[in-house]
Structure formats: structure tokens, C-alpha cells
């Protein structure tokens, strides 16, 4: 069956929604039940990273052999990644309000993520500023590679070089030490896989619509 991974997405996400709320979690001060956000906030960033890798892959392939399909794939993957990133920023902001006491703090992890999202926002602006399709595809493919190369250090490397409130940055060891001795891994890993697959599903649907549009347009011209 060709669509087995979509079935897997549905099963995993339903499991995560139910087990994510009901499974036992470590009892920690300040975090309390909000530790369950781990199943929803963190997979957004995993999914975003995976789909942005796919976007760069298609951009590089476009630069080697330019076809409109590859440009569409790179664009829709990047758009899905930006959506996941925005959801990640929003959910993180809510979580920060009730654990750190502020919607936003000038934390290297948060600011790094925000700047990286702005860099990707510029990708969309850049794309929309061309009228010639081939020029748009080529320049935005090059910019996409640049954006990825700048964004990933902002997300994952620079915050680790300094002190940060955010788990997984500075001296903070993320949740590794908590979910080692608990059932959290049982939900967290399926959550990462499920939300990542959902990102690919959404990107695939968006791509197919754009390709279809292109084909209908070409036929009208012919």
C-alpha cells in the first residue's frame, strides 16, 4: 500500500493525543502537568527541521536539473516548515508564560529561533518579488540553501554556546534526564514521528495542488 505512512500518521497522532494526556509523567515543580507540552511543542521543531531538510534537498536538485516540479516541491516544503516553526514559536510562548512568567524572554534560544523564522519569512518575500518564473525558481533555490545554512546554527548551535533558560541549550540537558526514568519516551518518540509525518503529508498535498494548477495552466496555453 502506497499510503501506509499516512495511516501511520493518523494512528500515531491519535495515540499521542490520548496517551499524551493520560500517561504518567514525572512530578516536577513549576512544570507540573505542562510537561506534557513536550509531546506537542517539541515535535513542531523536529518536524520543521525535517521538512526544511527536504526543502533544501529539492532546491539543490533544482539547481542541478531545473524543472518546475522541483521548484514547487522546495517551495511547498519550505512553507510547511515555516508554518511548523510559527506554531512552535506560539506554543513555546504560551509555555514560557506559565513556567518562566513571561510570553517572551531575551533568551538566546528564543531569539535565535525568531531570527531564523524571519530569515525564512524573507524567503517568501523574495519569491513573491519575481515575475519571471525561472528567475524566481533559481534565485529562491539559492536563497533557500543560504537560509537553511544560517537558520540551523541559530536553532541548534548558537544557543548551546551560552547560558539559556530553554532546555537543550546552554547547560540545560533538555528532558533527557527526566524521560529516562519515566514513560515519556513511549509518547515522545511516536509524537516526533507522527507530527513530522503530518508535515510531510501537508507539504505533499500542497505540492500536488500546485503541480495540478501548473498542468491545467499549461494545457490552457497549449
Amino acid at each position, binding site marked *: 500500500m502506497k499510503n501506509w505512512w499516512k*495511516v501511520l500518521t493518523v494512528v500515531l*497522532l491519535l*495515540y499521542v493525543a*490520548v496517551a499524551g494526556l493520560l500517561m504518567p509523567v514525572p512530578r516536577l515543580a513549576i512544570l507540573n502537568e505542562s510537561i506534557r507540552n513536550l509531546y506537542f511543542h517539541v515535535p513542531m521543531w523536529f518536524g520543521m527541521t525535517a521538512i526544511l531538510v527536504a526543502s533544501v534537498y529539492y532546491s539543490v536538485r533544482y539547481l542541478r536539473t531545473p524543472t518546475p516540479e522541483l521548484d514547487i516541491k522546495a517551495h511547498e516544503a519550505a512553507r510547511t516548515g515555516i508554518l511548523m516553526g510559527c506554531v512552535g514559536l506560539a506554543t513555546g510562548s504560551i509555555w514560557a508564560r506559565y513556567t518562566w512568567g513571561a510570553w517572551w524572554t531575551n533568551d538566546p534560544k528564543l531569539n535565535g529561533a525568531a531570527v531564523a523564522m524571519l530569515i525564512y519569512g524573507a524567503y517568501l518575500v523574495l519569491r513573491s518579488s519575481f515575475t519571471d518564473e525561472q528567475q524566481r525558481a533559481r534565485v529562491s533555490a539559492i536563497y533557500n540553501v543560504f537560509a537553511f545554512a544560517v537558520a540551523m546554527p541559530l536553532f541548534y548551535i548558537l544557543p548551546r554556546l551560552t547560558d539559556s533558560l530553554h532546555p537543550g541549550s546552554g547547560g540545560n540537558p533538555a528532558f533527557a534526564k527526566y524521560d529516562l526514568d519515566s514513560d515519556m519516551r513511549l509518547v515522545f518518540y511516536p509524537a516526533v514521528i507522527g507530527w513530522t509525518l503530518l508535515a510531510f*503529508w501537508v507539504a505533499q498535498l500542497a505540492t500536488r495542488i500546485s503541480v*495540478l494548477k501548473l498542468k491545467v495552466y499549461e494545457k490552457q496555453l497549449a
Partner: protein
Amino acid sequence: MKSNLHSAAPGLLRRPVLLLLALLLPLLRAAAQAPGAQPEMAEALRQSGKIYVVVAVIAVVLIGLLLFLISLDRKLSRLEKEVADER
């Protein structure tokens, strides 16, 4: 592909339910255990059983969204076939 989806539908419906049951039945026991002292968790919700209402609501919302995605997927497949056939 279309026929695949049709024939697989009843099996697909049953499998997630079984999977969920297998995963959730042990949890009922865990949820029923008495709380210790320590940091405050959503005990009150669990004691009155109302957390399951929230879980059910979230599950319904998610199922609705996923069904929408599936139907969109199938509509797209049909359109793609139509456009390909017209050539």
C-alpha cells in the same frame, strides 16, 4: 490506489482502535493509583474522571482534521487522474 483505500478502510478503522485499547488499558490502572505528596498535578480532574472528557474532545477534533486531510487527499488523487486522462 482508490480501490486500495476502499478495501483498507474497515481494517484501518479497527486497527487503531485495538492499538489504542492495548495501550490505554494499562493506563487506567496507573491513573487510578493514589497520588503522593509532592508537586501539584491535575489530580482533581482525574479523580472526578473529567480529564477523559477533554481527551475525548481533543481526539474528536483531531479525527475531524485528519478525516478532512484524507478526503482532500482522495479528491486530489481523483483530480490528478482526470487531468492525466484528458491528455
